[in-house]
């Protein structure tokens, strides 16, 4: 069986059927991977996992952390964990490497970094560009992006909107795709990334937590908000949330340039491939032009009165650009 992710065919080529099943399960749990078809003529992605020995690799080290490092090579990148590696050929859309049993059996949040980086680099060459953003759709069908760094409140806002009846794509990462009708956001990351402090306001999330350890926990929310998951949306509004010590949430309009710069901040990864950058920037510029950007200073009402915040965002999505400095209590 082959798979698809955000419309891009994926072929898994593993040394054993068991390993292929295991890899498919990991990718389906972490990302919005679904069954699909793959042909050699399709511009897809191939993941080839074997017991190959890692050959010496030379290249510029572009990222280094204890659990993951990346070298830039002639054909793409070489990603390495302490006991596994993936070599990315971005020209051919292929990742080849060897993954240890210990890596494959480690908690998913430990594996996520390697898979995320590999897929985002491969998908960018296939016209799917990552944005560090949550995404939700109002009851009347208006798409809203919540773009920002970790800790800016994307997950909290996405959960507040889901509780108020909105649909959601993701709390943390979407892919952007250029279409003749405009820029489309595609659901990418599956589980929500919840700080344990959220569980005080959203106890149902704590019950669904699948990674009981320190730091953010992965939470599968499909059963908490049934029927509210969406695969894609056309964003009408792009919000850049900031947590502030006020009672009421406030939205402050941004110019197209300010919106594009903030989108670049959340979309231009530290590790990037130059062949994809021009197209990625064009998509972000199209989004900054077609959707309206706002700083969203969200206050205590996100927890106390999420329906008020949902009403504010619905108002923005219905008449974007026509509002100035809106407050949630207005």
């Amino acid at each position, binding site marked *: 069986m082959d798979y698809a992710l955000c419309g891009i065919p994926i072929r898994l080529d593993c040394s054993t059927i068991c390993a292929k099943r295991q890899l498919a399960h990991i990718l389906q749990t972490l990302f919005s991977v679904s069954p699909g078809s793959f042909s050699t003529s399709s511009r897809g992605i191939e993941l080839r996992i074997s017991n190959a020995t890692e050959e010496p690799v030379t290249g510029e080290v572009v990222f280094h952390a204890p659990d993951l490092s990346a070298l830039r090579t002639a054909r793409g990148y070489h990603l390495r964990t302490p006991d596994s590696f993936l070599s990315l050929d971005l020209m051919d859309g292929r990742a080849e490497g060897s993954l240890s049993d210990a890596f494959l059996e480690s908690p998913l949040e430990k594996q996520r970094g390697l898979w995320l980086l590999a897929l985002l680099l491969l998908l960018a060459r296939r016209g799917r560009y990552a944005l560090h953003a949550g995404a939700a759709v109002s009851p009347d069908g208006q798409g809203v992006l919540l773009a920002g760094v970790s800790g800016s409140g994307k997950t909290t806002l996405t959960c507040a909107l889901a509780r108020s009846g909105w649909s959601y794509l993701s709390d943390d990462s979407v892919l952007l795709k250029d279409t003749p009708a405009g820029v489309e956001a595609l659901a990418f990351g599956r589980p929500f990334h919840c700080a344990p402090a959220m569980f005080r306001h959203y106890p149902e999330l704590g019950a669904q937590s699948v990674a009981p350890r320190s730091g953010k926990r992965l939470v599968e929310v499909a059963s908490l908000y049934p029927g509210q998951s969406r695969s894609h949306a056309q964003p009408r509004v792009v919000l850049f949330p900031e947590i502030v010590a006020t009672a009421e949430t406030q939205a402050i309009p941004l*110019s*197209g*340039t*300010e919106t*594009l*710069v903030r989108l*670049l*901040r959340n979309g*231009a*990864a*530290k590790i*990037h491939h*130059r062949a994809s*950058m*021009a197209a990625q*920037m*064009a998509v972000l*510029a199209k989004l*900054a*032009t077609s959707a309206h950007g706002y700083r969203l200073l969200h206050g205590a009402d996100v927890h106390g009165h999420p329906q008020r915040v949902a009403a504010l965002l619905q108002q923005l999505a219905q008449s974007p650009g026509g509002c100035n400095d809106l407050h949630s209590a207005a």
Partner: protein
Amino acid sequence: MTCIPQPDAEVLAMALPDQDIVLLHQDSGKYFSLNLTGSLIWRMLEASACHADIVRELVDRFDVTAEAATAALREFLHDLTIQRLITIPREEPA
């Protein structure tokens, strides 16, 4: 003879409807936004305008003296050079 700075080949420039320009350096991944004045200068650099033409345009558009415009242009070009957004071609012998 004065050399005319050129936008670096690695730089992507995106003009938005609000007239500002956003620059992205493909090699470093760094991005920059230019205000109205910076965007005007950038467009003139793209058109290979010389220093004197740019200064004249700044004086005409922004009601500044030629000395102030020259100093501002020099500082702006210095910043662009530091960020590798422009290159200054080697001076050819006359």
